[in-house]
């Protein structure tokens, strides 16, 4: 069971009707058993009723006239233009940084897309892959030819690829080593 020190601050909210149901039950259970807290609740209730009846104060009857004079003596504001970039920028306030960052990110993304588009569209009927891959494949074949010529082995797997392909194209007297696909 909660003690008075924990319950007392809740009594004010209990009187206001702003506690949730769990806390209402807790306060009601406590004040049913605790005379000082029950007294506090009753006196808070009376106090709030007295405060609600305190009448509104009113200013003097010349209030409106004095206010009108003060308003009349204020400088007239200049007409607000329909749209002004400086006013728009000023009205942005704290949103400026967010907008700037978003604009920069969007511009970067557009530049990246444009760059990719320009790089990939070099010539008609060719793809970047093909344009990049053909010289590379030729180089690999050539390098392999050089390496295999430098260190010939009986292992069929290092036979010159182009020579074996040529041999494959000569069906009658070419040596047959089986399915080339097994040797590649």
């Amino acid at each position, binding site marked *: 069971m909660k003690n008075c020190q924990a319950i007392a601050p809740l009594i004010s909210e209990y009187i206001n009707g702003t506690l949730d149901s769990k806390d209402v039950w807790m306060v009601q259970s406590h004040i049913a058993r605790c005379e000082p807290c029950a007294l506090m609740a009753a006196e808070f209730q009376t*106090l709030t009723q007295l405060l609600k009846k305190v009448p509104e*104060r009113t*200013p*003097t009857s010349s209030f*409106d006239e004095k206010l009108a004079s003060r308003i009349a003596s204020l400088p*007239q504001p200049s007409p607000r233009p329909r749209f002004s970039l400086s006013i728009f920028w000023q009205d942005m306030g704290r949103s400026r940084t967010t907008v700037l960052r978003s604009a920069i990110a969007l511009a970067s993304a557009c530049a990246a897309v444009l760059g990719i588009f320009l790089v990939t569209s070099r010539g008609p009927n060719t793809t970047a892959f093909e344009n990049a891959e053909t010289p590379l494949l030729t180089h690999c074949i050539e390098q392999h030819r050089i390496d295999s010529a430098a260190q010939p082995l009986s292992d069929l797997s290092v036979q010159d690829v182009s020579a074996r392909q040529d041999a494959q194209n000569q069906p009658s007297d070419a040596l047959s080593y089986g399915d080339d696909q097994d040797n590649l």
Partner: protein
Amino acid sequence: MIGQWTRNSTGLQQGIFVSYPDKILVDRCRARDQSAFGEIVARYKNKLYSYIFRMTGNAEDAEDLTQEVFVRMYSSFDTFKNQSSLSTWLFRIASNICIDSFRRNKKNRSIAYSLDEPLHSAEDSEATHEAPDSSYEPHRQYMRIEHQEQIEVALSKLPEKLREVVLLYDLEGAAYDEIAEIVNCPLGTVKSRLFNGRSQLRKLLSDYVAP
């Protein structure tokens, strides 16, 4: 003329916007409609004056400061973003003006009430005090008036931070979150100040609240 307030020779205009909600009045004020401004003044001047009077304890100062609230409102409609209600905005201005006033004055603001003064500060008020006379019946009215005076005295004795929350919640009927916005403090602090303010009032007004 676009951008200029429309004026007439009689000063503030009131009446045609009596049933309009506050938001519409604010929009009309942005369009420089003097009648809408007059309606806002009519709606809020007593509430603001009561609050400021009980915060400052001086009727003349309270009247000047209440006018200052409306002057500031008049000058800043274009910057009011409608994120809070009009009443919250006005009381926020009033609270800030009271703080500025306290800093300028830094004097004791306890209110000395006289039973000879009228209950209302308006010049045409007819509410007066009566001496207790057992042969003349409205002792009940006297008791009620005395209660109210004692309550005003007790309120004046509260520290300013507690007093403003009690005034806003118990007298003006503002909600916790509105008060938090007005006095610029967390919700928990509002509840704590309300509890502490009421606890002090309970002791000051023990003769009136005891069952």
